[in-house]
């Protein structure tokens, strides 16, 4: 309620919020500058230390405790008192301590991908006190992300992942500078982005990005914390660090496209990328704080279902490597001109394939199929998805024959068709045969095969059960 032109409470709150964030920003800048000054003083003092040690022993060196201008004490490591309190449980670790924290505050990390791996990684990286964190992603939050991409909330569905992740990071730690890169990571913009950071975390989900990020890190000499997860397994290692191998040293040739499964097809248990993402944060923290022994030259293999973690020794840097090898180190220009999608035969986008194998008359839209069902056309509908997909949801009166077992179960189709022929009224036409799958790709392969095996009337339903949900029955569940 507004009265007599007085501002509303929400406006005041808004102003307070805005002033607070300006205050935080100014405080951060002050603490940055203090840290710089401290460093300068320390460096100078170290040079003079030999002569002046005795003179300064009463505490007049600026490396030791000095009252700062606001009357509080500066302990000499650049950590302001609120930072000391915030990070106290880390400072108490003898192996990490003030030096580890001070190193971390001066360090910056870029997380590429704010998905299943990036979510937990970002939460910990923001919490632990890196100086600056960059987030790259061009996707928006979807409902089916939330089971594993735990940085995002329902309120952000439909909004850019970068905005959502940045807001979550700022909510945890307003003293960290969060930089939003709301763009796809490509050879054209990679160098400009990565150059600004000390450490890179690869939290992407596709093969061309993995090569692209690796090469960019090699060209710019940045350590790369690489994680991957699918199904119930995860993998972690650190590339291009301390003379260790890069991704191309291990995988000079990309895998065949058929070997690259995606979470959207094969599934993934949310906590599995969660665990790997946490480990990625840990590796980035170790590198940033210069504490511990990062996973360079070693790889962690995680098998969630059997509860086993295997740590293996991997090859060292390869002298013949096309990215980091001795003979032909990759240049910035070569990197920018390299066609990663062509090299890996895989698109950056993880959008599903849309095959077109069949002639138009061997296909039917879900709407048309629906009309034929309504008319009572005698037919057999074969669903060629895997059994565990079929259990999630299926069209009425379909029979499930997963594509790989089609050959062995052709007789089931024949007998189903014969049954329909017996029960139908008109004597002249045979029952028709339709094939459906999730998106309309496998069903085309199945129809191709069925044609070859003499089922010449077989037709596939274009777009699979997804198109059924989209065009016929909006209440039909999708996955």
């Amino acid at each position, binding site marked *: 309620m507004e009265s007599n032109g007085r501002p509303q409470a929400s406006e005041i709150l808004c102003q307070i919020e805005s002033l607070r964030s300006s205050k935080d920003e100014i405080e951060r800048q002050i603490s940055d500058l203090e840290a710089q000054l401290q460093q300068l003083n320390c460096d100078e003092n170290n040079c003079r230390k030999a002569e002046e040690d005795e003179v300064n022993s009463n505490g007049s060196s600026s490396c030791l405790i000095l009252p700062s201008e606001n009357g509080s004490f500066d302990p000499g490591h650049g950590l302001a008192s609120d930072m000391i309190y915030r990070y106290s449980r880390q400072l108490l670790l003898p192996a990490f301590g003030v030096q580890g924290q001070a190193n971390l505050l001066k360090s910056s990390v870029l997380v590429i991908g704010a998905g299943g791996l990036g979510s937990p990684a970002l939460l910990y990286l923001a919490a632990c006190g890196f100086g600056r964190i960059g987030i790259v992603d061009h996707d928006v939050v979807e409902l089916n992300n939330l089971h594993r991409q735990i940085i995002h909330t329902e309120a952000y569905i439909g909004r850019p992942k970068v905005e959502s992740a940045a807001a979550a990071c700022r909510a945890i730690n307003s003293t960290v500078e969060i930089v939003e890169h709301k763009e796809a990571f490509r050879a054209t913009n990679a160098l400009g982005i990565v150059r600004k950071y000390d450490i890179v975390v690869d939290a992407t989900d596709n093969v061309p990005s993995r090569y692209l990020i690796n090469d960019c890190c090699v060209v710019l000499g940045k350590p790369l914390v690489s994680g991957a997860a699918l199904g119930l397994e995860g993998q972690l290692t650190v590339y291009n660090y301390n003379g260790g191998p890069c991704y191309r040293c291990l995988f000079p040739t990309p895998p065949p496209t058929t*070997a690259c499964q995606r979470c959207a097809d094969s599934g993934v248990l949310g906590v599995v990328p969660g665990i790997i993402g946490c480990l990625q944060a840990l590796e980035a923290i170790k590198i940033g704080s210069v504490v511990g022994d990062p996973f360079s030259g070693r790889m962690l293999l995680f*098998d969630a279902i059997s509860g086993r973690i295997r740590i293996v020794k*991997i090859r060292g840097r390869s002298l013949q490597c096309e990215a980091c090898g001795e003979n032909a180190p990759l240049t910035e220009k070569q990197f920018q001109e390299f066609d990663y999608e062509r090299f890996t035969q895989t698109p950056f986008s993880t959008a599903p394939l849309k095959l077109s194998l069949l002639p138009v008359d061997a296909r039917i839209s879900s709407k048309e199929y629906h009309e034929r069902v309504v008319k009572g056309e005698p037919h057999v509908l074969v669903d060629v998805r895997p059994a565990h997909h079929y259990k999630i949801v299926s069209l009425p009166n379909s029979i499930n024959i997963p594509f790989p077992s089609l050959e062995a179960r052709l007789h089931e189709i024949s007998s189903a068709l014969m049954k329909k022929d017996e029960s139908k009224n008109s004597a002249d036409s045979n029952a028709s045969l339709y094939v459906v799958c999730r998106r309309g790709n496998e069903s085309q392969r199945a129809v191709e095969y069925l044609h070859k095996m003499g089922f010449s009337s077989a037709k596939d339903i274009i777009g699979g059960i997804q198109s059924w949900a989209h065009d016929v029955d909006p209440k039909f569940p999708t996955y």
Partner: protein
Amino acid sequence: MKLTLEFGGGLELLCDSVKIHHVNVEPQAGESKLTMKHLLPWVRTNLIKERPEMFMKGDSVRPGVLVLVNDCDWELSGQLDTNLEDKDIVVFISTLHGG
């Protein structure tokens, strides 16, 4: 010679989703030692049930498969020339790209 062979990263799908196989493999006739060069075709013949091209390419594993002999990258032990010994553990793991 008793070996433990393990498949991971999706390669287990090629052998009926069984990840761990305890097997007995003898060196080729006339050879005193079993090498990886001999083991790979043995695996293809005896364990791989489908899509063998997803396991091997030429006489080696396909790109994207890491081979570990006793938790060590086989590049460090001579790749195809790696000599295997009784009770060795050989892991074939496909790299993951998901996230």
